[in-house]
């Protein structure tokens, strides 16, 4: 969500030239770690803070307060040459767990499947593991197949999917470019296959969607409170929509 945070900061500074906001990327773990060690005012995260992280923060005298600032849909993407247009959640899970090795098992061409993922420090990675591969089941201990490629950036995933007809990847809807194909996803074989969009996410139809958070130390005060209010305002949420994320309420 670093793109979103950067756009917000830029827009806000243009509207209020006195404000100074600096944004650093690196993944949700990075942001929350920085929050725990109290080196930032706001930590952006695409996953909720873990209980042990909250505990560690409290030990350091930091009390993380959660704000949902936008929603995000994770799009499953393939190369435009790939004839596979739709998958069930279970199929996506099986692909990443390594149960399928060839696209023809899924009604595609006779090609090996190359799985792409973000690195383990990305909130998207953890979300995908818990909600898609393990289908939200806490006792499920399935892992990413060993030969899943872990790429350091969203752009790396888009580039490989665009060039490689064997590849499957996942990425925030906001990062997806028109030169890759987004796959329609269904909750189960009996349900409708849904394309991710602002509309389908807000209507809770698209199954792979999540909240995006900002954490502050205690209830936001002064400048930070003003900034968060602005983010929730129509101007702030307009940016959410422009970047392909989903506005909250």
């Amino acid at each position, binding site marked *: 969500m670093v793109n979103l945070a950067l756009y917000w900061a830029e827009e806000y500074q243009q509207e209020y030239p006195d404000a100074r906001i600096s944004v650093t990327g690196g993944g949700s773990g990075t942001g929350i*770690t920085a929050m725990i060690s109290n080196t930032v005012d706001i930590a952006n995260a695409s996953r909720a803070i873990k209980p042990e992280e909250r505990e560690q923060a409290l030990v350091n005298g930091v009390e993380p307060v959660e704000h949902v600032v936008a929603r995000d849909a994770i799009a499953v993407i393939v190369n435009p040459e790939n004839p596979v247009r739709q998958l069930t959640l279970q199929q996506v899970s099986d692909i990443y767990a390594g149960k399928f090795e060839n696209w023809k098992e899924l009604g595609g061409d006779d090609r090996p499947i190359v799985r792409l993922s973000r690195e383990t420090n990305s909130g998207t990675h953890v979300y995908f593991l818990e909600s898609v591969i393990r289908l939200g089941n806490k006792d499920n201990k399935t892992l990413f197949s060993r030969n899943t490629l872990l790429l350091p950036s969203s752009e790396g995933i888009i580039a490989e999917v665009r060039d490689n007809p064997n590849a499957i990847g996942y990425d925030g809807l906001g990062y997806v470019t028109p030169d890759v194909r987004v796959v329609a996803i269904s909750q189960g074989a009996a349900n409708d296959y849904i394309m991710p969009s602002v509309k389908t996410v807000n209507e809770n139809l698209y199954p792979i969607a999540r909240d995006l958070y900002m954490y502050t130390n205690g209830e936001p005060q002064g400048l930070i409170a003003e900034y968060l209010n602005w983010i929730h305002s129509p101007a702030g949420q307009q940016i959410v929509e422009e970047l392909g994320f989903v506005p909250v309420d």
Partner: protein
Amino acid sequence: MSANKLKFSEKIITRGIQFSGLSSIVFVLMILYFLVAQGLPVLSEVPLRDLFSTRWYPIEGYYGILPLILGSLVVTVGASLVAVPMGVLTAIYIAEIAPGWAKEILKPLVELLAGLPSVVLGFLGILILSPFLRDTLHLPTGLTALTGALLLGMIAVPTIVSISEDALNNVPETYRTGSLALGVTRWQTIWGVTVPAARSGILTAIMLGVGRTIGETMTVMMVTGNAPVMPDSFRVLFMPIRTMTATIASEMGEVAAGSLHYSMLFFIAVVLFLFTLAVNIAASKISSRQLKRSERILS
């Protein structure tokens, strides 16, 4: 008075040189201490059997470093297979065969290659080399150990070329003239006399070149796919792998300081340190042997 002054300034200079010399030792020792202090707790917390298991997935507590060590070795060996013949042959060409004008073009070009930032090389790897390898070799993906090895070879070549070339230039001219006077061809002179005479220098060059590839991070992180697969056969060269350096670089930003995962990354750094240390010791063993050789020649 002036003699006294001279003595005084000389003392300062000596001390200054002494300090610079010792400081590098102190820095290395401090780095080593820091790595070991942060990394060793791992040994008491993770059983050795888990440590040398084959699964690396730290966010769920799988701390097997075997695939990472082997991943680094595969890329390094692959890079050496590319860089050693290419580097040594280039050095021979520049030192022994090339006419003066070609020498003057080639040497700066090789040095320019040495100055190429590794992130630029990685970028070229993603955009050009990886799609090319995927299409020509019909691989599932172009982000493989081979891609990393080829690019790392490019990083090691300049080191190997410039040090080997120095070694070849240090071979006394009389060796060559003597050999040619015996009616031996130019090729036989190079292969039978000049190269063997410069052998220790060339071996040092190879070791230093290999040392560079083990520690290289950015390029491998961009082009090898970073999948912690356990290398099991020759085929692994054509599959994605994950190196120790890429693991440290991509995971260090995220871990909570003091956690087991954090210590684990330092432990990997210790292993990496031991590898480079071994290569450097081998290199200095070889070059000290060279010294004895030249002493023998002089006597």
